[in-house]
């Protein structure tokens, strides 16, 4: 339970920032929706943490959370690099 919980709680953090970051990149900088999206960090983290317990295999949990983070960060970097971002 300790390893499982540490993985769920800690690896959900970068995954949360990646998911919320992708939404923020796609929102125009001038919009007043930035603040509500920033407030979503807590619910998104909690959802990811709870969902990660639904995966019975620990290795799959790690892969899933790392993949979400990697894809999210990659998407943010790509969108910013290609200039497709609205920020």
């Amino acid at each position, binding site marked *: *339970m300790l390893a499982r919980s540490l993985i769920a709680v800690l690896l959900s953090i970068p995954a949360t*920032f990646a998911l919320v*970051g992708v939404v*923020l990149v796609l929102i125009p900088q001038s919009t007043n929706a930035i*603040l509500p999206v920033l407030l979503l960090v*807590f619910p998104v983290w909690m959802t990811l943490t709870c969902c990660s*317990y639904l995966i019975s295999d620990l290795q799959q949990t790690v892969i899933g959370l790392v993949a979400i983070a990697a894809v999210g960060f990659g998407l943010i970097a790509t969108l*910013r690099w290609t200039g497709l971002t609205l920020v």
Partner: protein
Amino acid sequence: MKKSTMKVFLGVHTWAGLGTGMALFIAFYAGALTVFFHELEIWDSYHKAAVSEQQNIGEAQQLLDLAVTKQPNMTSNLRLYPAEADHPEHVVRWFERQPDGSFERHEFRLTESGSLNTAESNAQLAGFIYRLHYTAGLPTGFGVYILGIVSLIYGLALVTGLIIFLPNLLADLFNVRQGKNKKRFWLDAHNAVGVISFPWHMMFAWSSVVLCIGIFTIAPFQLLVYDDDLLELIGPELGVVQPLEPIGESAPMLPVEKLLAIAEREAPGFAATQLRFTNFGDRQATVQIFGNSNTETLLSNVGVTLNGSTGEVLAVSHPNTSGIGATIYNGLIALHYVSFGGYLVKWIYFVLGMGGAFLFYSGNLLWIETRRKRRQLRQPASSVFFARLNSGVCIGCMAAVSAAFLASRILMDLEYRGDVIEWTYYGVFFAAIGWCFVRPVGVGARDLLWACAVLTVAIPVADAAVLGMPIWRSLALEAWPLVCVSGISLLSAVMFWRMAASMHRRLQYGDANSVWAGARTGLPNAQVAER
């Protein structure tokens, strides 16, 4: 949901609850009292000979002028709190920046004869209870961040708790079974309180994370997403306005009356509660006026920022014109601070806050009961240790808060009353924990409940003896903060006494195979204490 998954969620609920329960107990117990922060301040300073009538706005100007003359270097971090019905005096506070970065507070008031009173108010009980609420008694520097992390885990405990209860929701929600099986009773009560107040608890978990560690939850996006300063992007929406740059040219400030008139013009129906001055006396002085407006919605906070010398309005923050972001953010904060709905909602929050404290205490008891060995005297060492700690921290906190109230009343004329309140709280709190570790578990808990009853009933007695305000006199004079504190104290004392009596019966006649067993087991105290 599969049984194995439910088991995992039960495990998560257990560690999350145990890891945060005691800190949350203190936060909720102190938080329930903090709902009445303003009323506690009045209770705490009732003995002070306040001015007989509410001071007028001309006297606010007189006070500000006298204070600035007395302290000419008082240009920034300067605040004027205009008199209100409950606070008939104007107060000027200056937070002087020290070389080490900390701030020293100075207070100024106007006496009835029109002279300047620079004596600090020694009524600090409400402030201390509030600090206890957001630090759980840990040093403020890091306590607030610890409580932020605790709030994260608290959210997880709430969601997992709901998930494991969902399959039996309809059958068990209002079913609190009292009987021989004490575990069943505690579980039913824990579930009923937890599920009924679930949305309120979720709001608290979320808003506490935002308030305590919000900066850490948005900082990564500055690196990840934004080139510009993120705080500058969202600041204006929240009414945060950077003060004007001073130009070093002195200019007369607009009178307070004029500043308030401009604010009233920008936000009609606005009642100012605070004026913050930055670069006072400079041509580019900034004045931020905060207050409340009756918008008949959740949000009531209004802010008007202007140039203190020219009166030019720099920004207006009003619920009626706020964007969606500010509305959601301020709504969450308003829900946390119960700055809406008046006394009815405040009392509901008080009851829910006490219910929250019960939730964490009962959760911890459940864990102890679950691990109970029903066929042997010797109980697991971890259960005994946790039972001691839980009783010491939770019951000790309640005893310590009552002792702090008592100390504040008895030593009401002492200059260093604020310090003594803190020493009293921590002295009683740590003594309670120590007592639980030197006495058998049940005996320690029973003794602490007696102590709670005695300390709590002593509060209205002290009101009568020291202040000359027994509850019937407070009632006759309609001194409602005193009436409420005395009334709640008496009610709490009766409840503590009944719990102590129940614990005493448990020690005498209860099952011997339990951490709570007492002398009936025939074991010498030392041996009982080990179990």
